[in-house]
């Protein structure tokens, strides 16, 4: 039963170029980049067909890190899935926890106290800083700068991870949010530490931009590479900085205004070429916006309980029903879709990962570019395999 005359929207890059054997150009070179490759950010493989240097066909292959996170979610209680969400996008465990907690609170109609909402915003923005700093470092590593920008990025990341460790107990596997609030209250010293880091993060960013943004070699390598059109981005469900780099104004913090984001005034940067350079610059500008949010949140963090008194940790049985909660993670929209049938285990537990959906257009961006560009384009998409494969 084929669809009634629906033509398949030809992607901008014309992904269906026939891999023709051209006598003069010689035969096409079929290369498998990955799963064990220095610049694929984890176990990810790209079956690339090369005509000399230019890419003719590129099929991403993943599933090497597939642990069936969703089946696990359906066989354990709601609380037991929380530590597993740290392992989804293992760079940003705080935002994963918040997305899951938000979905379950929506499912059970669970109120959250003021102080916990502010703490969640502070930790989410710190995670956004951490993720974007990591991306800038990895992108430069892919273009060949021998580790210097990556080391500067990791120096800043370590400061934020120390904050997470002194708050939640573990650097990356925080398991910090609960349904109806947070687990540990932030001590005054911790808040002072967070304020100190936020204040001179701007200084680091200026030095970093001085090293990178004006660099002609980087501009030559990334401008015009892997361009993505806004229409294709919207149709392919791209979210996060990659979407805003194409000029589409869609940031869940403004659209859904979940949590207490409506109380902070911050701006959403938009690019207009949608190429790799824009994606890098959008993330740098977003880091600056996150700093302003953090300063506002730290300034007017209210006192009060961090956990809703009526919230139950054990024996949590939400009424039957379903809910889809989503937040603006550093990589894009991360959402949890839960169907509950009243039992302590969720009936259906679904994670909507941003990296997995953002990879849909990888081939369209890489066609016609050289193999050295494909590495950078993949880097600019910013994928984490824990989240792609679940």
């Amino acid at each position, binding site marked *: 039963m084929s669809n009634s005359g629906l033509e398949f929207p030809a992607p901008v890059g014309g992904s269906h170029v026939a891999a023709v054997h051209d006598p003069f150009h010689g035969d096409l070179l079929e290369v498998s980049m990955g799963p064990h490759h220095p610049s694929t950010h984890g176990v990810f493989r790209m079956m690339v067909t090369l005509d*000399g*240097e230019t890419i003719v066909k590129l099929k991403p292959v993943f599933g090497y890190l597939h642990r069936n996170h969703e089946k696990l979610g359906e066989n354990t209680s709601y609380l037991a899935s929380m530590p597993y969400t740290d392992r989804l996008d293992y760079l940003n465990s705080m935002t994963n926890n918040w997305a899951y907690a938000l979905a379950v609170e929506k499912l059970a109609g669970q109120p959250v106290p003021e102080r916990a909402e502010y703490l969640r915003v502070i930790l989410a923005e710190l995670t956004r800083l951490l993720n974007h700093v990591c991306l800038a470092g990895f992108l430069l590593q892919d273009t060949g700068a021998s580790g210097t920008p990556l080391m500067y990025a990791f120096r800043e990341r370590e400061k934020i991870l120390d904050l997470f460790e002194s708050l939640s107990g573990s650097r990356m596997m925080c398991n910090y949010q609960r349904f109806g609030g947070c687990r540990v209250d932030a001590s005054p010293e911790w808040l002072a530490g967070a304020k100190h880091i936020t204040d001179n993060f701007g200084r680091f960013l200026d030095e970093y931009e001085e090293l990178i943004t004006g660099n002609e070699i980087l501009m030559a390598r990334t401008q015009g590479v892997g361009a993505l059109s806004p229409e294709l981005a919207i149709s392919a469900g791209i979210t996060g900085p990659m979407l805003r780099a194409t000029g589409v104004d869609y940031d869940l913090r403004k659209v859904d205004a979940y949590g207490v984001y409506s109380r902070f005034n911050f701006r959403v940067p938009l690019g207009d070429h949608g190429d790799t350079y824009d994606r890098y610059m959008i993330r740098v500008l977003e880091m600056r916006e996150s700093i302003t949010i953090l300063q506002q949140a730290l300034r007017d963090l209210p006192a009060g309980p961090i956990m809703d008194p009526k919230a139950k940790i054990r024996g949590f049985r939400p009424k039957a029903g379903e809910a889809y909660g989503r937040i603006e993670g550093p990589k894009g929209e991360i959402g949890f879709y839960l169907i509950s049938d009243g039992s302590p285990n969720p009936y259906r537990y679904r994670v909507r990962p941003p990296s997995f959906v953002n990879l849909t257009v990888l081939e369209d961006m890489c066609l*016609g*570019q050289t193999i050295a*560009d494909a590495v950078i384009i993949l880097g600019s998409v910013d994928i984490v395999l824990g989240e792609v494969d679940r």
Partner: protein
Amino acid sequence: MTGLLIIALVTLVPAAVAMALRNVIHSALLLILSWAGIAAFYFWAGAEFLAFSQVLVYVGAISMVVLFAVLLTRHTRTDGGVAPDTLGRALAGLLIGGAVLGVLFGAVLSTPLPIGSKPAAAVTVHGLGVELMERHTIALLVVGVLLTVALLGAVVLAASDSRSGPEDAR
């Protein structure tokens, strides 16, 4: 004399072996070795400038052209020697070879070679330059213009290549 003998051997033997080898790449490399032999001969004769030019031009650049040409034609392993088809062709081959050999020997024997142990005057680069500039200025200028035009042509080709060439990434 022994030096000259060694240099002659280094020049001629690789050239001969190069012809007999089956692998074209090996024979190309041996050819380059014999060019180096010629450079050694210039050294022996005291013309350092000429020797360095020989090495720079032949071993440096023209060897690359030869190797690229061999690679682009891509059938590096010729299988089986090339036997002459008919007896007539073999005879004709021998005849022409003998004739060329006769002419060469005639020329070598008939030219009055200066016999004596007077070493050639030590020519400095400055001297070479002055010689070239005074007596052969016109020839030098023509060659100079020719080379510059070739060079500029290459640059223009490279410049125009990006617009039309499909290969060059945008």
